[in-house]
């Protein structure tokens, strides 16, 4: 088994992102049922969302800067160059939208959600946008991965001929 630092960082980046999405779902469900009793749980969960997205940013940034250039070259010479030109380009910038929303979520969640229906509505919207943009980013990651895989498969096919 050969697990490199690149593998660990990439998978940890995706893992932090998925956990951040799950935590945002947690916030959404808790906010739907906001009461005085779960107020601190909503606040804590919203902080967890922000911390997980910051972790995804740092890990993804490190991988993008140090390891992605090789994958990028591979994708661009393969059959799916749009995996980089469209999906990676969008993903790397769309992530900041999710990050900003994740940083805002704890601020919105520190309102008394059980007493302020509009503050609750804001938290629901922000959590939902984090989930939707997060899923889009995860899906884009799958397309990028497939773009690299197709390029490698084509090269392997040529080598076998």
């Amino acid at each position, binding site marked *: 088994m050969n697990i490199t630092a690149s593998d660990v960082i990439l998978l940890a980046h995706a893992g932090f992102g998925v956990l951040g999405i799950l935590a945002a779902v947690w916030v959404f469900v808790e906010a739907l049922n906001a009461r005085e009793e779960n107020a601190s749980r909503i606040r804590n969960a919203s902080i967890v969302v922000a911390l997980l997205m910051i972790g995804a940013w740092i890990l993804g940034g490190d991988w993008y800067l140090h390891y992605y250039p090789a994958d990028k070259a591979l994708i661009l010479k393969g059959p799916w160059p749009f995996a980089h030109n469209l999906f990676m380009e969008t993903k790397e910038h769309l992530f*900041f939208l999710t*990050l900003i*929303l994740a940083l805002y979520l704890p601020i919105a969640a520190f309102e008394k959600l059980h007493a302020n229906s509009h503050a609750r509505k*804001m938290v629901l919207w922000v959590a939902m946008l984090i989930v939707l943009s997060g899923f889009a980013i995860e899906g884009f990651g799958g397309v990028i991965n497939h773009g690299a895989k197709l390029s490698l498969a084509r090269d392997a096919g040529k080598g076998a001929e």
Partner: protein
Amino acid sequence: MDADTSRLGRAGRSFAVAAAIAIVFNTVIACVKDADKPVKAFMASLSGHDWTTQGIADVVLFVAVGLILWKTSIGEKLSANSFIYLLASAAIVSGAGLFVWYALY
């Protein structure tokens, strides 16, 4: 149980506007740096990579604008829905805008 209110708190209002501004800024700067290579090179010179500079600029803008607005009475008379519409529309339009930009550019 506390009485329901129709307004967000000061932090909620200020940082909602700051988040909307930072999100729109992020999309605009992504398009500008791709269309204008000197801008991209300048951004890269600040931190070693344009993407790193963009991320830091987004977060700094969010925090700075939020703190500045926090000291003002911005939106005190606006309903909470105004801030929700502002932030949600900024996120949806900016997110879709990024995809369309890279699809066409």
